[in-house]
């Protein structure tokens, strides 16, 4: 039967491990925002080679499952002589994967702005740099916030896959816990509860942001 005591006891170690889930998804989205901005810029640039590169980058990272990407990086790094902790490799892989989605979110947000605005800015004599920093980017960034929060929720869930390369985040910790207690049902449901709590909080933040922008 379902043992409530085991269920409640599982929360201790799993909540401790939750910091790594948050760390990986938080740093992952941060890295994804930076690389995603560069990829988005390359995609919108006037240079065909850069545009092509960005398109291949996005298509590869969105076409290959994250689990395969993680194992690829995990086995590739020693071969090319890069020795970093598994945690760093995981964050970088998650961040690179996120960059493909982030760049598409930003491209969409920029495309959603009415063309008339930049035309008007040109008409009143603003420089291209000013148009980007004062008209396009501020609006595109706030337009993209709900989608970015959504992406962060996806990353929290995707971070469960880094358990495969041995990082003690929630999923890996729950596997260890299930092995020592022999009560997988309680432990995995506890893990699911923690993920759900994190994601419901993030979704609430997303709704607030969306609401703010609608006004």
């Amino acid at each position, binding site marked *: 039967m379902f043992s409530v005591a085991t269920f409640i006891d599982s929360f201790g170690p799993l909540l401790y491990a939750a910091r790594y889930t948050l760390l990986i998804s938080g740093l992952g989205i941060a890295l994804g925002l930076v690389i995603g901005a560069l990829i988005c810029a390359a995609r919108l640039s006037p240079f065909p080679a850069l545009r092509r590169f960005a398109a291949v980058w996005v298509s*590869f990272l969105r076409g*290959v*499952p994250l689990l*395969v990407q993680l*194992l690829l990086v995990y086995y590739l790094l020693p071969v090319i002589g890069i020795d970093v902790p598994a945690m760093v490799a995981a964050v970088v892989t998650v961040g690179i994967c996120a960059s493909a989605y982030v760049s598409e979110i930003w491209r969409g947000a920029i495309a959603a702005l009415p063309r008339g605005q930049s035309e008007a800015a040109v008409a009143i004599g603003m420089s291209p740099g000013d148009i980007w920093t004062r008209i396009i980017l501020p609006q595109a960034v706030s337009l993209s916030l709900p989608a970015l929060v959504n992406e962060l929720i996806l990353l929290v869930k995707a971070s469960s*896959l880094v*358990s495969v390369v041995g990082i003690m985040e929630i999923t890996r910790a729950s596997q260890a816990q299930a092995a020592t207690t022999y009560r*997988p049902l309680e432990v995995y449901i506890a893990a*699911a509860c923690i993920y759900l709590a994190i994601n419901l909080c993030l979704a609430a933040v997303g709704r607030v942001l969306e609401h703010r922008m609608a006004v």
Partner: protein
Amino acid sequence: MDPMIFVQYSPILIRGFGLTILAWLLGTVFGMALGLVIALVQRYAPKPVTWVIQAYIEIVRGTPFLVQLFVLYYGGPMVGLRLDPLPAGIVGLTIYGSPYFAEIFRSGFRAVPHGQIEAARAIGMAEPAIVRRILLPLGLVSALPALVNFSIILTKETVILSIITVPELMYQVQRMSTETFRFLEGNFVLALFFWGLVEVISRFGRRIETRITRHLIERP
């Protein structure tokens, strides 16, 4: 890089690919069916029922697929639900996909102009007939692009089944890698393979989309 290992392991790789496709097809079809039922129930059921279903949707969408599989495959036997890896994987894909499909159907139904349903009621069509002849045909067409898109996302989720030992492609590639000590090659080819697969399926999906939505394109 030694291409011979792929030749040598081709029988199990092909079998693995077959299982990947099988799990994906069944998971997608069942997930869509469950999603459609959920969307219809959400539309017509009384309030308390919709709350329960809304909770199901939030729970499934708020938790990782891997953890859902662990609950089902390792936790299931504790409550008498004993499944082999492949059935567990297909059930897992069905459950995981159903709320996303349900939301896609829901927004598809919302895109059906309300006037058409009112008109159907006005000429005395019964509610089941309205669903069958107005809501479904019109709603499904507008849901199609999102349905195709999510089905493509599900192909990538199938690799996670390897973690609960479903002998699909990812699992067989890991087995090949462990036996030959060629971890990099196997995973590299697997990545290229999925890239190609996803590209092919998306092209194919776009073809179906343009075919089915032909009548919506306005001719000049």
